[in-house]
């Protein structure tokens, strides 16, 4: 008999769903639902998650799900939470679970509107940096230089800095997170759960087919995004900026891995020239200079 007692964890998001091999979404949802508890409603706009969440014959989620048109999720969530509160339900958590296109492009006005009204909802953007469900088309959150089916030469424009834009809405809580750092992610969801008003968590969510990497590398790539400084982990609570997890150690450039280590594992960056790679490195360093300023404040 083993001396170690096995902790049996009951999954909150069932396996056997329609996610691709190596897709982090089911695990991300599992952690999210576990932290938020069973009095959670998920609002899900058109995305990979629409498919992952099953069909009329059943779903892998253990909490209620309300599917949403592409641009409507923050508004549907606003309506749900207002109705629940009117019914006297004070603690149910209404959570939008949306991709980068629904968040930063087609649903951006809706998101901004709900944030400006400080609706009592948690909005989680799982950012796989393109329209993956329709087959890898660029979004405003695709990074500069990345190949997609609509940017065969590589995207020319920068990635929309959504977490910072959301912070400018003066909402009570904004955070970034990564599936490679599950405890950091978990802690942020836990914190967001305790706060009332509009809360925004932005998860970088690597996509094996879309980013062109082997499905065994998801966590490694997610980790490299943080270690190279491409994806800083932070939270902004009532305007106060704070780096979290390993990102705390990355203010000094020496501690950051060169971005090439992150880029070289992904087919979507395979056509980058040396000069372009240098430019990407410079933009990351520049972002960290800005972060330094924010930390000082």
């Amino acid at each position: 008999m083993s001396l170690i007692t096995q902790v049996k964890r009951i999954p909150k998001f069932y396996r056997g769903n329609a996610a691709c091999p190596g897709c982090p979404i089911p695990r991300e949802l599992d952690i999210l639902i576990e932290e938020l508890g069973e009095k959670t409603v998920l609002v899900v706009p058109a995305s990979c998650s629409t498919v992952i969440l099953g069909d009329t014959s059943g779903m892998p989620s253990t909490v209620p799900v309300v599917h949403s048109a592409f641009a409507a999720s923050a508004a549907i969530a606003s309506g749900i939470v207002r109705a629940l509160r009117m019914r006297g339900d004070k603690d149910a958590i209404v959570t939008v679970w949306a991709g980068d296109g629904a968040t930063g492009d087609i649903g951006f006005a809706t998101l901004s509107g709900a944030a400006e009204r400080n609706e009592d909802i948690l909005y989680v953007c799982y950012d796989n940096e393109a329209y993956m469900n329709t087959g890898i088309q660029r979004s405003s959150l695709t990074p500069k230089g990345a190949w997609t089916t609509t940017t065969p030469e590589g995207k020319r424009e920068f990635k929309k800095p959504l977490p910072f834009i959301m912070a400018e809405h003066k909402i009570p809580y904004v955070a970034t997170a990564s599936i490679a750092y599950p405890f950091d992610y978990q802690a942020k969801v836990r914190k967001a759960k305790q706060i009332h008003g509009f809360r925004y968590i932005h998860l970088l969510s690597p996509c094996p087919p879309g980013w062109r990497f082997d499905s065994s590398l998801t966590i490694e790539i997610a980790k490299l995004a943080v270690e190279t400084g491409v994806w800083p982990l932070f939270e902004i609570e009532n305007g106060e900026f704070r780096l979290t997890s390993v990102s705390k150690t990355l203010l000094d450039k020496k501690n950051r891995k060169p971005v090439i280590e992150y880029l070289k594992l992904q087919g979507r960056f395979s056509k980058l020239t040396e000069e372009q790679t240098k430019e990407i490195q410079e933009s990351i360093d520049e972002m960290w200079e800005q972060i330094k300023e924010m930390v000082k404040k």
Partner: protein
Amino acid sequence: MTQILKRKALALVGNHAVAYAVKQAKPQVLAVFPITPQTTMLEKLAEYISSGELKAELVRIESEHSALATIYGAAVAGARVFTATASQGLLYMGEMIYWAGGQRVPMVAAVATRAIAEPWSIWDDHQDFMSKRDAIWIQIMAENVQEAYDLTLQAFRISEDERVIMPVMMGFDGFILTHTMERVEVLEDYEVDSFLPPRQFNLIDFSDPIGVGPIAQPDEYMRIRYEAMKAMERAKSVIEEIMREYEKISGRKQYGLVECYKCEDAKYAFVTMGAWSGDAKVAVDRLRDQGIEAGLLKIRVFRPFPREKIKEYLRSMKGVIVFDRAVSFGSGGILANEVKSSLYGLEVPVYSVVAGLGGKDVRPLHFQKVMEDLIEGRLEEERWLL
């Protein structure tokens, strides 16, 4: 048995009459975006909420698309909900209109009908309202301010009836009704309370979580659409039943899927929908004075379309003239097409008149003239009153 009731009467413009009905219906969540000619209704609702007369959440929303999305979410979570819009706003809502219809949640939307750009026009026609005819919404339209008030209350009840469960759109002509003051008899609050009991519909149950509106495979999708069609057909008798019940409360005999004005013994009939039905009635009276056996069939419920009633009332007419304030371009007057299709197989000549687009004035005289032309054999199959 005639019951003589002393009713409270108020002088209200259409927008305020609808707002008054909404206040009495006690919705819990509203989301309304300003658009002419609906805006004064939104302002009145904001006043009711601010003064505490209506205890509801009014979401000051950033667009019409989001307005409908918000009340959809609230309806799914069990609230009685309301929105109002017009014209471009209804078009901008379009995706969510279909979304709510497809999911079949109870909700009420008032549409202050208005022409669609381009070119810009803030004036009345029915193009906006008619553009949503295939969205699984019950569509009703008022002739006057009194009816706009009455139909708003009935809309909530119809929408929430368990045999129906479907969104209801209440159309009333922009400016012609929204901004015109009329004497309106209103129900007492307690009467509305008994007519409209608290809503029993909720899809968010934490102890029994479901996915609302997931993917449907082809067999299932087709079945869901067929159910919607059956519910629409079923709604016809439910609407009649609810309207009759309302009639008893209000003491005003004026309701049904259609209204027949002097059409029982008529040989010629107009068919209309909305505010200009009043002008048509004046025309009918004048034509009768001239010895022409004219009548009017007013369509009050456009979806589900009252095919049977149309057949019943128009089957032996010598001529029917359908007035349309909306067009299916490349096809014809929308109401005229529907009437023709309802009368298929019967030998009733149906003439289509397209008029009043973008607020172009139409008066009783126009109705008279067209009827005279019909009788003298001068009316084309389709005429535009330019």
